[in-house]
């Protein structure tokens, strides 16, 4: 089955069909609003999902491709949200310009923090980002005259669900497409080289620091846009809901479940975990974080290459090998063979 899947590139057709369905989804609400086939609640759920896919793709574009794990990515979501909120509430800037301003704030901060920490190899960046996340929440809380402090900011309400649905759908699709294109360029290839062997990459002529900072700023700019959209849709922001600890953890989980460093990984992982999260909340309300933590451990142990890894190479995961053992007969010829001798 997996071989057939790969041979006919069904994923591309499936993605196209899925995109068309998603574009058409809100139409019943316009054409036959009395039937309530598509409710605002459903559109809201999809909007949240698109935002998660968008953010997980951003996180993956930097951490998945370069191997530098960003444990504080929610900082840039928060900066985007607060940048947008402050510009709209305090300065009366229209939303489209405000969201762009918020994203620029996120990108500038990413440049500053990245320039300082991404010159170092190893885990320093991850530790620095973790600290930045905690510090930024407190800074936002302290500068009350600008951010509203712990009381938060209330943005002008604009509850047009179909509009948010389309904006996030288009934004997500563009980001996924750009990452797909980037993976095929020399820039994308150099990011993978950094992940695989940074010293080797540098010795082969790649200015690793510049590449890391560039993709970090781009990813954070994109996450800043999501933050701004989220703030406007939510109409209220405060430090605790914007700088939420598990937001980054969710992005990590989604990307690892889908497939770290793959283009489709965050899309698949975010979709699966988004619906799964509802089930977890419904059944383990008091323990949902514990259940999420256990899931993360299980994913890392049994599906380290993610769902896309199982589809691409069943041998790479224990779950994939189990699948192949029981259902994979007849696919043996599809698997690569290990060659130990030079064939001249």
């Amino acid at each position, binding site marked *: 089955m997996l071989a057939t899947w790969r041979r006919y590139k069904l994923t591309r057709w499936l993605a196209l069909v899925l995109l068309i369905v998603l574009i058409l989804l809100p139409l019943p609400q316009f054409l036959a609003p009395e039937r309530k086939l598509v409710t605002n609640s459903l559109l809201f759920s999809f909007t949240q999902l698109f935002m998660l896919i968008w953010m997980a793709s951003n996180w993956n574009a930097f951490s998945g491709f370069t191997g530098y794990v960003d444990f504080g990515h929610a900082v840039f979501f928060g900066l985007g949200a607060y940048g947008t909120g402050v510009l709209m509430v305090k300065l009366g800037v229209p939303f489209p310009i405000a969201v762009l301003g918020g994203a620029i704030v996120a990108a500038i901060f990413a440049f500053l923090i990245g320039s300082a920490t991404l010159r170092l190899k190893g885990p320093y960046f991850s530790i620095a980002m973790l600290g930045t996340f905690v510090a930024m929440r407190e800074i936002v809380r302290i500068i009350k005259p600008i951010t509203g402090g712990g009381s938060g900011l209330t943005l002008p309400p604009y509850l047009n669900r179909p509009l948010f649905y389309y904006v996030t759908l288009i934004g997500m699709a563009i980001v996924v497409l750009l990452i797909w294109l980037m993976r095929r360029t020399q*820039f994308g290839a150099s990011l993978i080289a950094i992940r695989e062997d940074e010293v080797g990459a540098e010795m082969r002529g790649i200015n690793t620091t510049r590449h890391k900072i560039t993709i970090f700023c781009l990813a954070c700019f994109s996450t800043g846009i999501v933050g701004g959209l989220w703030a406007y849709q939510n109409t209220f922001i405060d430090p605790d809901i914007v700088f939420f600890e598990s937001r980054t953890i969710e992005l990590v989980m989604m990307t690892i479940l889908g497939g770290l460093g793959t283009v489709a990984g965050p899309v698949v992982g975010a979709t699966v975990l988004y619906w799964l999260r509802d089930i977890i909340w419904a059944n383990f309300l008091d323990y949902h974080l514990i259940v999420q933590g256990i899931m993360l451990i299980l994913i890392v142990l049994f599906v380290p290459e993610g769902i896309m890894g199982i589809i691409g190479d069943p041998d790479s995961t224990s779950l994939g090998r189990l699948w192949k053992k029981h259902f994979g007969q007849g696919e043996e010829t599809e698997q690569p063979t290990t060659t130990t001798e030079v*064939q*001249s």
Partner: protein
Amino acid sequence: MTVALHSAESPSPARTDQPLLEGRGVSKFFGGLAALTDVDFQVYRGEVMGLIGPNGSGKTTLFDCLSCVQRVSQGEIHFKGTDITKFKPYQVAHLGLARTFQVIRVYRKLTVLENMLLSLQWGNLTMRNKFRPNSAETEARARQLIDFLLLKRVTDEKAGNLSGGQQRLLEIGMALMPDPDLLLLDEATSGVNPTLIEEIKSRIRILNEEQGKTFLLIEHNVQFISDLCSRVFVLNYGEKLAEGTPDEIMNNQEVIEAYFGAEAGDDDGF
């Protein structure tokens, strides 16, 4: 085998009096430990030079300093007349110096072809070109080198699945992708079977004699050094012990003592 593995403007193999690579008083200290002390040497364009020495003599540290993976503590390094002492590794690579590593550094999860494509001449790429897919010429060059290095049958195999010898060949191919002037090969025959060693030797010879590539080789295989190198440079305890032709070095009493101790005088080879 005749293959066009170099660009049209590649130099002829003729040796010149101007050193291609030169170290002047190179020293490297790790705290109180002197890994290299006041090392002077020259590598000339078009030659194959050997660098030998007992384990821990500072050979790989010298390679790290030459390729700017590590900064020298004292002294200067000049490549093509440019002082590269404070350069970054990628800047040295852009100048035309490539290297392989003692511990093989290939991208294990990527295919042989992908490994090659990841190792092209980054310095010549503008930012706009970096956001374009690999050109057909780049892929053609990668495939040509893969063929030259006898890896054609494993082109689409993941590098991690290759044998140690094949990975060595792949690493040499990756170093060749940017069409460098000088290649530093760190123990290119380590863990490689004798048949493949002969293949590596013949490839180096072709690259040197037909393409004009200059080589600096770290090696423990004396036969390999004798067959390929015109000059050999010996390090011991981080200091230059001797320099000369392979014959001179093999008959040098100090070198023999450095490898086997003072008692060994009649042994043939290292």
